[in-house]
């Protein structure tokens, strides 16, 4: 069994990666094609689609909106995530697992259901649709990711460090700032980056909850109706792809480095 597995595993992994990433490869390829029609063979190489991007006011507006929504969602979901992660790693209270489960639930709920439910609730509450409602929706789906990153940050944390700080005369707030926050700072940065990326790329919630202000994915969706605009969309998509990939990579690198630091408490024997 094991032998068969180990023979086929590389082939399986290869197919999996091709299936997952091949379509993604076409995005940058066609975004540098001179022809507006995405087909092989390429008719020539150009960067004109990229050069046009900054000259499209609607796109710049959408980018600005995405930035605002992304930053707001990232900051708020990280703040909420810090409180929740600290409570869950620190205190053993009744219903702890249940609450943890509920916070993580948006990860597996169909996004369209979440979107429609939120839409109904927000309208019932008398909110008018705007970027603010998009932020609310994004916080909901970002929190599970923030929580995952932050919980791992808080878990490597030895309670006696806070006691040591109090013992040395520091107040509760000073302890939180000088010990707790400094030690989980990498997890916090990582959570900010990941939530920002998720918000930046999110479409369905934004589609239902945005009023007249479009975010980048909504802008792209709007442009898809015009065949002539396709190369511009591909160029924009490529940029988003590269940006997201970079942000998530940085987040993961920071998180791992921090995890290594807190777990390496044993230290070298000198």
């Amino acid at each position, binding site marked *: 069994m094991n032998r068969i597995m180990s023979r086929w595993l590389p082939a399986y992994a290869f197919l999996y990666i091709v299936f997952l990433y091949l379509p993604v490869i076409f995005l940058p390829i066609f975004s540098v094609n001179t022809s507006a029609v995405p087909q092989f063979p390429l008719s020539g190489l150009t960067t004109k689609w990229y050069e046009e991007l900054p000259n499209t006011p609607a796109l710049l507006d959408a980018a600005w909106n995405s930035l605002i929504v992304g930053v707001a969602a990232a900051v708020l979901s990280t703040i909420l995530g810090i409180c929740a992660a600290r409570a869950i790693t620190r205190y053993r209270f009744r219903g702890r697992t249940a609450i943890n489960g509920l916070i993580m639930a948006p990860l597996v709920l169909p996004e369209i259901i979440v979107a429609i439910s939120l839409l109904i609730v927000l309208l019932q509450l008398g909110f008018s649709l705007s970027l603010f409602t998009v932020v609310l929706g994004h916080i909901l789906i970002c929190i599970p990711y923030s929580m995952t990153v932050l919980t791992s940050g808080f878990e490597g944390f030895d309670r006696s460090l806070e006691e040591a700080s109090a013992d*040395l005369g520091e107040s509760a707030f000073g302890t939180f700032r000088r010990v707790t926050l400094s030690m989980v700072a990498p997890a916090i940065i990582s959570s900010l980056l990941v939530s920002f990326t998720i918000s930046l790329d999110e479409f369905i919630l934004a589609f239902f909850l945005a009023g007249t202000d479009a975010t980048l994915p909504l802008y792209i969706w709007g442009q898809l109706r015009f065949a002539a605009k396709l190369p511009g969309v591909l160029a924009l998509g490529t940029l988003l792809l590269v940006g997201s990939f970079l942000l998530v990579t940085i987040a993961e690198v920071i998180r791992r480095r921090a995890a290594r630091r807190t777990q390496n408490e044993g230290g070298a024997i000198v």
Partner: protein
Amino acid sequence: MSDRPMIEIRNVTRSYGSFKALDDAKLSIREGEFFSLLGPSGCGKTTLLRMIAGFDNPTSGSIFIDGQPMAGIAANRRPTNMVFQSYAIFPHLNVGENVSYGLKRLKLDAGEEKRRVEEALEQVSLTGLGKRGATELSGGQRQRVALARALVMRPKVLLLDEPLSALDKKLREQMQVELRRLQQAVGITFILVTHDQYEALAMSDRIAVMFGGRIAQVDKPQEIYQRPATRQVADFLGGMNFVKADVVAVNGETITLETLGFGRITTAKPAGFSGNGASTTLGIRPERLRVMWDDEKAKHEIAGKVIERHYFGEITQLVVNVDGLEKPLSVTETNDFGADDIPVGAPIRLGYDPDALVAMAD
């Protein structure tokens, strides 16, 4: 050391539900004293230490430090500092930053702060390691950083929770000597928690022995070792031969006992002794029984037969059967006269000093 009490524990109880982790503890620890809390795992040593530090509060009773009641005073406002069992070195700070952590709040001028950090590092022999990262230290060095970080605050009381238990034997013995020397140099009251009786005996001015949340005896190391108040204390501090004894007479502070092996003995009355006519327990440490060679004579002797011999390098332990005693006696003898050559089965005479026999409450 002065006679002024630095810490007073007045009838302190700490309950978790119906379980009492600490039961009606009373203690008075003097200024400048090296005091140890000794006891087996789970006896409540850490519980007591953490209440002194302010991380936990008594369910009832009160704690005074330097005459001040500590009720309602948080850990960061108490004149105590702690060396944690896990050391709790801040991993995101280097050695110097760890040591200066508590000084930052005092807002000293930069030169003064630097001077105090260097002084503290010197006290624990870590001079020049200020820039070293906290995760790049050996166990012994981490222990020293924890010590320096607490000492630099110049507390009235330094609390140490099993500070040496994570170190290997050699380093532990070296640190015992250093800690004791350091305490005498700085003159601060040290309270050491340990479950290692040798550590407590070697380092302390006085020891409190605890069992199951209760303080069984508080005294100087020699007294604790030679005059244990109860069988439990005697047992915890090393080997002890117990002999059943009948009380013949009680005269004020002394009692006269009749035993089968050791005859009639008059000794100090144990603290917890209740009435006469009862039976009690006599104890004698294995090293207080001496092997009598050939024509050697002692004023008090007991005869028996060697039934087991165990070799431990510098000493040999003999197990000697004595007629009339329900249990054989354990005897330890240094090997310089050939105790390791005594054959099993040989008849043997053991000399003793009646003062070495202690009456104990059960």
